[in-house]
C-alpha cells in the first residue's frame, strides 16, 4: 500500500470497485451502498476517508427542490487521480503481504 492510502478493508474495496465500474458516473450515498452491496448508511465513513484523500469529489445536486419535492442530494465521483490510485490500491490488495509461514509437504508418488 502506498503511503497515505486508505486501509484497504473489504468494504473499502467494495466501494472502490463500485465507483470504478463507471468512474464518470456520479452516485449519492445510498446508490454507492447499493452498488457496493453494503448496507445503506454504512458507506459514509468510507466516502469521507476517500474524499479526504482527494480520491473522491462531491457536489450538491443542482435541482429545483420545489419541483422535485425533495432536497438536493450529495453526489460523489472519483477524481482522475482517484481512479488511478484506486486501481493501483485494488491491484495491491490482491497481493498477499507475507509469504506463507507453513507449507504442508506434498506427497510424492
Amino acid at each position, binding site marked *: 500500500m502506498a503511503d*497515505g492510502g486508505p486501509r484497504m478493508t473489504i468494504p473499502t474495496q467494495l466501494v472502490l470497485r463500485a465507483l470504478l465500474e463507471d468512474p464518470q458516473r456520479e452516485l449519492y450515498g445510498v446508490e454507492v451502498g447499493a452498488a457496493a452491496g453494503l448496507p445503506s448508511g454504512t458507506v459514509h465513513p468510507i466516502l*469521507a476517508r476517500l474524499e479526504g484523500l482527494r480520491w473522491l469529489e462531491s457536489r450538491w445536486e443542482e435541482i429545483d427542490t420545489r419541483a422535485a419535492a425533495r432536497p438536493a442530494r450529495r453526489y460523489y465521483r472519483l477524481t482522475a487521480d482517484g481512479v488511478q490510485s484506486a486501481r493501483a490500491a485494488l491491484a495491491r490488495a490482491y497481493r498477499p503481504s507475507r509469504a506463507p509461514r507453513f507449507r504442508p509437504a506434498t506427497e510424492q508418488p
Partner: protein
Amino acid sequence: MTPPTADRWCCRTVQLAARVLPAEHRQRYALEFVAELYGMSRRQQVSHSVQVLSRAWALRAALDAAALGPIPEKARHRTRGWLLCHLGRHLWTQHRNPDVGGKDAVFLLCLRCGRERQGYEPPPPGSVLGGL
C-alpha cells in the same frame, strides 16, 4: 408505495447522527442524510437512519483523520504494533547476550516495543519447536 417525504422520526435520527460530527461538517451531513431518506419506503428509512446513527462515530473518526492528513504507512504499522503489544500480543524474537554464557544467554525480545520477556526458559538443545 414510496412516501413523498421523509419520516419525521428518521429525519431526527439522522440529524442526531450529524450532531456527533465536527462542527464544520455538521450541516452538510445533516442535509445529506435527510436528502437520502427521500425515495425510500418507511421501512428502508428506519433501517437507513439507524445505520447512519450507528456509524456516526466512525464517520467522525474519518473526518478527523482527513483533517489531520494522510497517515504514513510506517506510522500506521507502529500504531497497530503498539496496540498489539498493549494487548499482550508481542512479536517475540530470540536473541543471545554474548556477555552471558550458557542457557542464560538466550532471551526473548519484542521486535515492536523492545520489551524483554521475563522468565523465559530456552528449549533444551536438540528439540525442535518445543518438541513438535
